């Protein structure tokens, strides 16, 4: 104990080198644990993206592309499957439920997904959790749009706000489906999956937006097509952040009845909660009546009656006669994709291990450098009765103390960093960083670092032991 207190006082006497060593070890520990935490958390949120879905069916192609586009909404989905294929699959005996998924449009950079109401009943993530509504309610109206929590937060949307969907990823200017405006009926609670950054619409609305020639939708019997009132319309559109020029391009579709329009104007002062007050556009009215399903969709999420049916169903789908399909098992595909990412993780791990090693070597060199100037100190200690073992212990104790305080500081830094980063990460990247206690694996790593420090300190310890035997009490400097 006395030796440890001596080691401590000796360290404090060399504050500068002590703190430099302390911080280099602390930072390396923070880095190492940070990478571990990030790895665990990304792995968790990655694998939690979808659950309860037994198969994802898309047109034949790379399974990773199908997974990325349907679960993470990353990348394009140029390939489509027939809607009637979906109908057929959903009637297969082993299929408990099937949900159609249609992708390809966006709103201000966020994915717009077309599906039907059964999506909310069957889609689950993490531990079979269903999506929850934070505000509003899921409306069966075909022009209701349900938005993810992050979309709502970032774009500052409220229930009842009007939304115009952009064709494609928004790369082409002016391709807005402004013949079909949506109103927000529900905002989902955060799920920390891609759904948070997604707007969900009905398949019928999707079909209405993508019908090849709007003109054929035309006017309903008894309605007259009138050119829009320009001024009134502009006032209406400005609310939706619309470019006037773009609007002109679509003018012909926006056939407002004068009276209707006046009524609309009256309501335009942000009384959006009552969506019935919104007047449908001509195209919307047509779509409402026709309730056309799209001819093509991008994918089908399938739940089976029994897990035993998965492989059989997968092979049935992969050999589907009417059109080339492929079916992936999400849990397996996610795992495969993760293993691909884990290559980067291994590289990162190697780097952090070296960072820790550099920290420890820094400590070693600083102790070694201090040895010569401390031979006098050792001789004095010997003269008052210290054994060579005490002198050895002084060095080992010093290394142990520096490393231990480095580790403690490093852990503290990690938690401070996590606490600081948690909110911005969730807000900006939808990445929810769960702050957990250190796992036994982490503690194992820390124990190994501490042990390595003690082992490394054997080198200067052994040197000083030798010095103290040969120097004895003679002060040679």
């Amino acid at each position, binding site marked *: 104990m*006395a030796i440890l207190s*001596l080691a401590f*006082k*000796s360290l*404090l*006497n060399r504050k500068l080198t002590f703190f430099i060593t302390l911080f280099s070890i602390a930072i390396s520990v923070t880095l190492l644990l940070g990478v571990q935490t990030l790895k665990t958390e990304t792995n968790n949120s990655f694998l939690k993206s979808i659950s309860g879905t037994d198969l994802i069916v898309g047109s034949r192609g790379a399974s990773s592309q199908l997974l990325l586009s349907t679960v993470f909404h990353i990348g394009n989905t140029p390939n489509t499957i027939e809607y009637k294929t979906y109908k057929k699959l959903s009637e297969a005996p082993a299929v408990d439920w099937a949900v159609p998924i249609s992708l390809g449009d966006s709103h201000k950079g966020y994915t717009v997904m077309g599906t039907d109401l059964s999506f909310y009943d069957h889609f689950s993530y993490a531990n079979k959790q269903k999506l929850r509504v934070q505000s509003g309610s899921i409306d069966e109206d075909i022009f209701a749009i349900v938005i993810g929590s992050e979309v709502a937060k970032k774009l500052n949307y409220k229930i009842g706000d009007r939304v115009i969907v952009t064709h494609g990823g928004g790369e082409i200017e002016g391709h807005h489906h402004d013949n079909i405006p949506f109103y927000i009926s529900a905002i989902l609670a955060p799920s920390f999956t891609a759904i948070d950054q997604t707007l969900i619409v009905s398949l019928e609305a999707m079909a209405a937006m993508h019908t090849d020639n709007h003109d054929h939708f035309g006017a309903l019997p008894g309605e007259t097509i009138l050119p829009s009132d320009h001024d009134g319309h502009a006032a209406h559109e400005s609310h939706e952040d619309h470019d006037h020029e773009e609007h002109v391009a679509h003018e012909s579709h926006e056939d407002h009845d004068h009276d209707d329009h006046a009524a609309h104007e009256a309501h335009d002062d942000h009384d959006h909660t009552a969506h019935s007050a919104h007047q449908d556009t001509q195209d919307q009215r047509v779509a409402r009546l026709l309730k056309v399903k799209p001819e093509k969709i991008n994918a089908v999420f399938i739940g089976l009656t029994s897990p035993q049916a998965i492989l059989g169903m997968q092979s049935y789908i992969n050999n589907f006669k009417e059109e080339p399909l492929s079916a992936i098992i999400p849990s397996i595909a996610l795992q495969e994709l993760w293993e691909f990412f884990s290559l980067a993780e291994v590289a990162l791990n190697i780097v952090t291990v070296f960072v820790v090693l550099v920290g420890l070597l820094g400590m070693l060199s600083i102790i070694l450098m201090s040895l010569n100037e401390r031979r*006098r*100190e050792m001789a*004095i*200690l*010997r*003269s*008052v*009765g*210290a*054994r*060579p*073992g*005490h002198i050895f212990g002084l060095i080992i104790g010093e290394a142990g103390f520096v490393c231990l305080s480095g580790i403690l500081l490093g852990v503290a830094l990690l938690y401070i960093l996590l606490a600081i980063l948690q909110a911005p990460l969730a807000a900006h990247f939808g990445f929810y960083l769960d702050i957990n206690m250190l796992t036994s694996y982490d503690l194992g790593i820390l124990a190994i670092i501490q042990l390595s420090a003690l082992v490394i300190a054997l080198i200067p310890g052994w040197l000083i032991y030798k010095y103290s035997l040969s120097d*004895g*009490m*003679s*002060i040679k400097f």
Partner: protein
Amino acid sequence: MINLSNLRFAWQKEAIIDISSLNVKKGQHLFIQGPSGSGKSTLLNLLGGVLTPQSGDIEILGQQLDELSASQKDSFRANHIGFIFQQFNLIPYLSVIDNITLPCTFSAPRKAKALKRSGSLEKEATRLLAALGLDDADLLKRSVNELSVGQQQRVAAARAMLGSPEIIIADEPTSALDNDHRQAFIKILFEECQKEEITLIFVSHDSTLKDNFTHQVNLQDINQVAIKETL
């Protein structure tokens, strides 16, 4: 008190010490004169039990040192011998009081004796410092680096005396001091050793100091190695 006989020590096959006999009695103040290179520090390390002779006996306080293990020698030294060196005797990162009480870390008997005498280590340290002419109470808490060389040597003497060891071995304790301080230091050291009945072995190359001592030995006269070399 201290008896050396037929003491031989060689370092890497080179003979350094060869003393046929040296006896020091209790309470004696012995001056050992020897220029550097005469085997002085080797002799001190042998007396302290830090070095082990190849042959011959060292008996201190009736204890044959070669009967003790290395760590027993370390505690024997801690319990019975106080050392004062030339300079930089003190551990720079410890306060004056911590430096003085340092032997107590390694010797329970000396700690017990110090406590018995003054009640607390701090009081005992203050008492010793006052006896050595340093009666500034603030001094105890100060960093040793703020002291003058003369003050440092007196702190070192206080450390050597703490817990009343039977023997004090001083190795050139005054060589860093100017003449006035040197005489004052020796005088105080003598007085205290007398009072505490401590046997003092004072080693120096400086022959002008030897008149202060009742007993004197020239290392060159008793060390056969040195005699051979001068021949």
